[in-house]
């Protein structure tokens, strides 16, 4: 199994933080102090290598971690729209830009195939994400989406899709500030083209198109440490089908443990235990929106969902996203809510299984039913629907149920980033209310 990812640059940067007293009457001393601080920060973080490119970009810098005087908010002001570059960035001669129309089934199939064969794998190349076509339509077409932000690159002659990046619009609240942002995702370059450096061009191009819509901030995740994560989360996993997980190598069996005991350890009841627990329906959108907005207000960074957003992101879609709520049998009031999305992975090189079916915890709100009981019911319905594993990040209040419900820590860490928006001192995973797909 892959070793845990021990990138603690952000935490280390915080550990070395000291307040530098401003001395406006003597700027040379201030400059010297900042330079010393920069060296201290770098020295205490071997993994925070110099990032020549990033240091020119409007993102939080490692060296700024210690400076509590820097304000929250946009790092650079918006540019006049007339100054946003009008033409796409140039590509190598053999390739051309291609805006992907997801209404076109053939194009959707091409995009699905590009991702299924070339997208994110684990460190040991045993699994690869296998987003379904229906998932891609859901993820890429929220309310008010921009088709121009579904950016493909294809070979000029064969018209084969060889690279892709996407942005979708979102309102994200950071402390008291609701900001129109782009959520950037699905950056994928065909494996045979990794040496052609398409990725930076794709990132520049999506940024350009986002700017054309007068949007100047973005949110994205990565598995590597870049300047500078606002927080770093860890994945936790709850086995639902342990025999299969062990067979494919997702988890392992110790030499003194039996498969039989493992199967019994993860056994779940046949049906949800909470009275009034049922699947969400269209008529529930208003109630769920109310619950969710009240809940997400507790977090430092969270989406600012309205009813249209809730209807799109949380109304159940088979094999894409599933949502359940608790309706009081007496008052018929909706009191609690939970949801998870479906992300299968291809199992590479296993004789018995081709696909791993994973549920990913999405948004969960508990007001009457204890959160642990609510999530236990989510596990039960996921098991009923033949999921193999239930995954959750340690964001929001998830930490409160992970151990009790027999989640185990995973080897994957996920770093969250904001582009052109600074959050002083970063935040804890439990202060993050945003889930990116």
């Amino acid at each position, binding site marked *: 199994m892959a070793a845990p990812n021990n990138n603690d640059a952000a935490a280390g940067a915080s550990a070395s933080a000291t307040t530098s007293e401003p001395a406006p009457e003597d700027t040379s001393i201030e400059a010297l102090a900042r330079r010393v601080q920069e060296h201290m920060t770098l020295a205490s973080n071997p993994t925070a290598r110099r990032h020549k490119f990033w240091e020119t970009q*409007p993102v939080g810098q490692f060296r700024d971690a210690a400076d509590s005087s820097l304000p929250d908010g946009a790092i650079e002001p918006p540019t006049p729209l007339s100054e946003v570059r009008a033409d796409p960035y*140039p590509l190598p001669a053999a390739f051309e830009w291609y805006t992907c129309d997801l209404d076109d089934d053939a194009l959707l199939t091409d995009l699905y195939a590009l991702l299924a064969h070339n997208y994110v794998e684990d460190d040991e190349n045993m699994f690869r994400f296998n987003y379904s076509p229906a998932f891609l339509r859901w993820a890429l077409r929220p309310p008010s989406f921009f088709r121009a932000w579904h950016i493909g690159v294809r070979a000029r002659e064969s018209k084969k899709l060889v690279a892709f990046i996407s942005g979708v619009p979102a309102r994200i609240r950071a402390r008291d500030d609701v900001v129109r942002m782009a959520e950037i995702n699905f950056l994928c370059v065909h494996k045979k083209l990794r040496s052609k450096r398409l990725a930076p061009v794709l*990132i520049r191009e999506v940024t350009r198109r986002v700017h054309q819509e007068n949007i100047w901030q973005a949110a994205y995740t990565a598995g590597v440490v870049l300047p500078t994560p606002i927080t770093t989360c860890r994945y936790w996993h709850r086995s639902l089908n342990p025999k299969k997980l062990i067979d494919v190598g997702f988890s392992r069996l110790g030499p003194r443990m039996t498969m039989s005991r493992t199967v019994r350890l993860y056994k779940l009841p046949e049906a949800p235990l909470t009275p009034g627990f049922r699947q969400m329906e269209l008529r529930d959108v208003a109630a769920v929106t109310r619950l969710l907005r009240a809940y997400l207000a507790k977090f430092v960074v969270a989406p600012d969902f309205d009813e249209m957003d809730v209807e799109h992101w949380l109304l159940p879609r088979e094999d894409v996203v599933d949502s359940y709520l608790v309706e009081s049998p007496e008052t018929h009031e909706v009191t609690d809510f939970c949801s998870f999305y479906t992300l299968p992975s291809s199992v590479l090189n296993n004789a018995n299984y081709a696909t791993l079916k994973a549920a990913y915890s999405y948004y969960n709100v508990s007001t009457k039913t204890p959160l642990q009981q609510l999530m236990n019911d989510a596990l039960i319905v996921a098991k009923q629907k033949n999921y193999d594993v239930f995954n959750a990040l340690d964001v929001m209040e998830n930490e409160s149920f992970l151990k009790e419900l027999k989640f185990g820590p995973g080897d994957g860490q996920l770093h969250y980033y904001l582009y052109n928006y600074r959050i002083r001192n970063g935040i804890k995973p439990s202060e993050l209310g945003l889930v990116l797909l």
Partner: protein
Amino acid sequence: MGGDWQELAQAAVIGLLFAFLVAKLISTVIAFKEDNLRITRSTPTSPSAADTPAAPAPPPASLDGGHGDTSDGSGSDSDSDWEGVESTELDEEFSAASAFVAASAASGTSVPEQAQLQLYGLYKIATEGPCTAPQPSALKLKARAKWNAWHKLGAMPTEEAMQKYITVVDELFPNWSMGSSTKRKDEDTTVSASSSKGPMGPVFSSLMYEEEDQGNDSELGDIHVSAREGAIDDIAKHLAAGVEVNMRDSEGRTPLHWAVDRGHLNSVEILVNANADVNAQDNEGQTALHYAVLCEREDIAELLVKHHADVQIKDEDGNTVRELCPSSWSFMNLAN
């Protein structure tokens, strides 16, 4: 004494020369990386800085063990080239190899002309793609020879050219990569095309720990270990040595329990034929058949039933195997 002196002088000269070459290599590698690490085909002219809006491009993903003697991440600019974001291992290795060749040429190392031309052609394919330049005049012998070296490779793919380039350098300088910052995979000289950790997007995470008994420290005998591993020869040896076929481990499990648990049909057959007790119960009241059912070992369950395993036995939770097993196992209904 004269001979000793000569050897000492020779060693000193070689040492000095080596130090000079290493220093030259390091400086050339650094300069090369600064100027040439960006390797693309037919790169269009990049727009001026004033014309370029900001883009959130991540820095290159570093290779495991990618920091060699010539690379120091904490103070040097040599590895901060963000445009390497999509560099693969192959790309890094090609860059190191071509930097080495440039350093060798600068230090006057002799390379056969045919190999020089071959390297030239491969380098051009890797960095500029197929040859589209007009053929130089026959009067310019060197230029024409170079053009031919490039042109004859036709439309060779970039990756193939890089790989061949590295192979040629390996043949010319077998130890060139020992001083390189690129670490070669031990058992595989073909660089994997698999993706490194992506610059952006989700992460695939797997469970990090082994399923273990919480608070329990089970103890297994050797025959249990052999049964768990399906080592049928070892099982036979243990039995021949007089080990009791129904020996219990600290949780009351017999070798048959372990063989069934891990799905080793052959081991189950050996144990059953050695008169293992098919109805032995572990400390939780479970028989080997309970294990077969829980672990969905259908073929093993069928074998146990043929050997008269009792389907009526209840474990400590009060479950019989019929209650636990999939309804599609029709042979369970035929059992006594």
